[in-house]
C-alpha cells in the first residue's frame, strides 16, 4: 500500500508557528498576572517569603557567592 504524506507548505508552517507563539504568550501573560496575585494571597508563598527574609536578615545580605 502506498501512503502519501502531505506536508504543509512553508507559508502555512510560518503561520502556524506564529499562531502558536501568540497563544503561548497570551497564556504566559495570564500566568504572570496570577503569580502577582498569588504573591499576595497564597499562604505557601507568603510563608516562604518570610523565611527567605529571615534568612537574609540573619546573614546580613540577600546575596550569595557562587
Amino acid at each position, binding site marked *: 500500500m502506498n501512503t502519501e504524506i502531505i506536508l*504543509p507548505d512553508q507559508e502555512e*508552517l*510560518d503561520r*502556524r*508557528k*506564529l*499562531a*502558536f*507563539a*501568540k*497563544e*503561548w*504568550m497570551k497564556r*504566559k501573560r495570564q*500566568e*504572570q498576572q496570577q*503569580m*502577582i496575585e*498569588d*504573591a499576595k494571597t497564597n499562604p*505557601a*508563598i507568603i510563608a*516562604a*517569603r518570610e*523565611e*527567605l*527574609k529571615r*534568612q*537574609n536578615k540573619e*546573614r546580613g*545580605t*540577600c*546575596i*550569595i*557567592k*557562587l
Partner: protein
Amino acid sequence: MEPALSSYNFKFVGGEQNVYLFESRLACEYEIKFKPSGYLVSDADLEEYIFELVITLSINPFEPSLPAADGLLAPTIAQIVADFLNSHERVVVYICDDSDSRADARRKLFDGWFRRFSKKRYVKIELSLGQDENGQDFTAELVARFDNLLVPRIYESFLKAISAAK
C-alpha cells in the same frame, strides 16, 4: 579578570508548579515557576519532562515604574534553572518577545551568563517563532542538561506540536 560570581539567595517553595522565590537588594521580589507543560510536545510519553519557565516581578516597591537594571538577576535565574535541572531528564522551555527593551536586555544578560558559565553543562536551543503584524518577534528557547538523552526527541516533538497548531 573574571568578576566574582554572585547571585541572590533563593528559596524553593515547591508545589505542582515548582515555584522559587528571591528578593533583590532593591526589595523587589521575583517569582519563578516551572510549570508542567505537556501540551508543548506532541508525544504523550514525553509530556512529563517538559516545563515552561515563567518569571514575574511579583512585588515591585517602585510601581508604577520598573526597578533599575540589576546585574544579579541573570545569574540568579541561571542558578535556579540549574537547581531545577538537577533532575536530569527535565527540559525547560520559555517564550520571549521583544515587547519591552528591558525584557530583551534581561534575555541578553541571561544568554551572556549562560555562554560564559553554563555552556559546558547545559544545551540551549533557540527557535524563532516569527514576527507579528506589529513587528514583534517571538522566540522559544529550550534548556536542558548536556547529558539529557531525551533532548533530540523532545525538540522534534515540540516542533511537531507547533506545526500542528491551527
